[in-house]
């Protein structure tokens, strides 16, 4: 039993999961928003509380979470026994 939730399946038979897909998407958003946030530090947008650099923070957070998911659920990853709330997610590999 692997921690891999649902195999999307490919010709190589590797376990490519929705969690990995989510990781990729969040990482793309993370890169985009971190760059936008860095630009907005120099050119603040006309929003309330712009001094808090929310775009940069959210961008960084998404990048960390996205990369975390990508690495944990990298196809053919060894780290399969992920525990969530103590309940093992054991889908078919």
């Amino acid at each position, binding site marked *: 039993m692997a921690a891999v939730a649902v195999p999307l*399946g490919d010709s190589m038979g590797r376990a490519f999961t*929705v969690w990995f897909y989510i990781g990729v998407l969040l990482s793309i*958003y993370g890169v*985009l928003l971190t760059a936008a946030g860095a630009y907005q530090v120099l050119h603040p947008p006309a929003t309330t*509380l712009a001094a808090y650099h929310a775009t940069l923070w959210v961008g960084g957070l998404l990048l960390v979470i996205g990369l975390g998911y990508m690495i944990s659920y990298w196809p053919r990853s060894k780290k399969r026994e992920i525990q969530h709330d*103590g309940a093992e997610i054991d889908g078919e590999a």
Partner: protein
Amino acid sequence: MILALLSGQLAPIHWLDTTVIAIYFAAVLGLGFLLQKQANSSEDFFLAGREMSAYIAGISFLAANMGALELMGWAATSYQYGLLAAHWYWIGAIPAMLFLGLVMMPFYYISRTHSVPGYLKLRFGEPTRVLSAISFAGMTILMSGINMFAMAKVMQVVLGWNLNFSILASSITVAVYVTLGGLRSAILNEVLQFFLIWAGALVVPVLGLIETGGWTGLKARILSNVAGTPSNAGYLHLWSTLGHFRSNSMGIHWTGIVFGLGFVGAFGYWTTDFLVVQRVLAAKDLRSAQLAPIIGAWFKMAVPFIVILPGLIGLAVLPAAGMPLVSEDVARAGQHTYNEVLPLLLIRYAGPGLLGLGITALVAGFMSGMAGNVSAFSAVWSYDIYRPLIRPHSDEAHLLRMGRWSTLLGVIASIGTAYFAMYFSSIMEYVQALFSFFVTPLFGTVILGMLWKRATGPGAFWGLLAGTCSSIGMWVWVRAQPSALATLALSPDAQPIAESLYRMLWSWLICVGVTLVVSYATRPAAYESLNGLVYGCTAIPAERKYPMVQQPLFWATAAALVFLWLQWLFR
């Protein structure tokens, strides 16, 4: 071309925002295409091959419910009525979800049914199944159209999007990925959308609390903004103002919240509405199916942070910023309505890029709700209406094709009802009305079927019919004669929200009463035929022994304790 259609009205739409939204559309379509080759049988298409883990089923169980109305509508309700709106997330969901996981799920799962009407067929026979399938199909299409319209309207007013463009772009995307991959695609996209809803919406409560000076500052600002209204104490309390209809902003009594919402309304929705139950049926084994709604309950308890709290923040900051919100029926040109509170706050706090992510969150919420509706519709249509009534001997391949076509049909019919919904002024009222017509009587039928051996087929059929008809009857009665509200809701001070809660309660009682009387008057079903369907006639299969922290009961008890703590905290 898209940029031209998105010409900003209130918010200047930056190219970065458009890019973020475009990436989202590409991601959901991409997932649909990846999953296309895995939808080869009707079991694949309608039940995602029954292989989902507890986490995926649980998140999707919750996300299917987070439509556009759920996000924007309840933020609007909390702007209008304050913290009382959180009842719809806590007592109006958590006990029911835990009950579904612990008590009802074994019967749904062991009977190997494809749908809730399918369970009624096994338990009560064809007439009850067909009645519930037809009312479910009709309600689902109306709901998904109303959701679509609510979404498109906000996009039009706040962001200047073209109404037709918003409706078409979002619904075609949903149609493509659900038609390609069936329920598996709907579910996995719902998980993706759930992450994006949180990522995009989180900025509002966090910056909002910073701006208002935390919870204490927020409460002080709200109290000064609502100082002129009667019964203003209700804005910041869950329970302490529910002693009388007059003493709170909603015009409601605690019996309506506890019995109408917490028992009948919530149990009806979360345990018998196939839109959410379908996701749990896709779980890979009984333990996952039981854990899924319990995991959903944990996430559900957190949702008020991105829905109810923004409504309260809007109430604290928007009037001072010269933007007091008003209801749909009195809004003049240039005024904003309650429904726009969440988009307005996003514009207030989110700069280019982040605003795109916030809009993506709203679109994702809309799409997950819409996909939930059409995938449930297509399963009920194919299994419970088309096969028994129209073409009894359709084979597997035919049913799979019918699943794909009926998904498209569901989307097209929803677009039709979206334009139909434009003629109604109060959207929330119609949603509550639809629930009370179709969902609450159904809960009476299903729960008696599961827990009471003596309930018979004719009893269930006439009970369900009587419950639905009486609910519609009560609704018409109050429309024709507004003073009837005082009779139905037991108080001359009751407001429309109280009406819908008491209507749910009465229609459920009528359904149960008629089922009891007719069942005792008819011949009981043979004991053997109830095996696997009814409590007391079913051996729940013993699973391998799990440690305590992996058992559904452990997590349900912990969730119940957190739920009670929240009630006490915000009493």
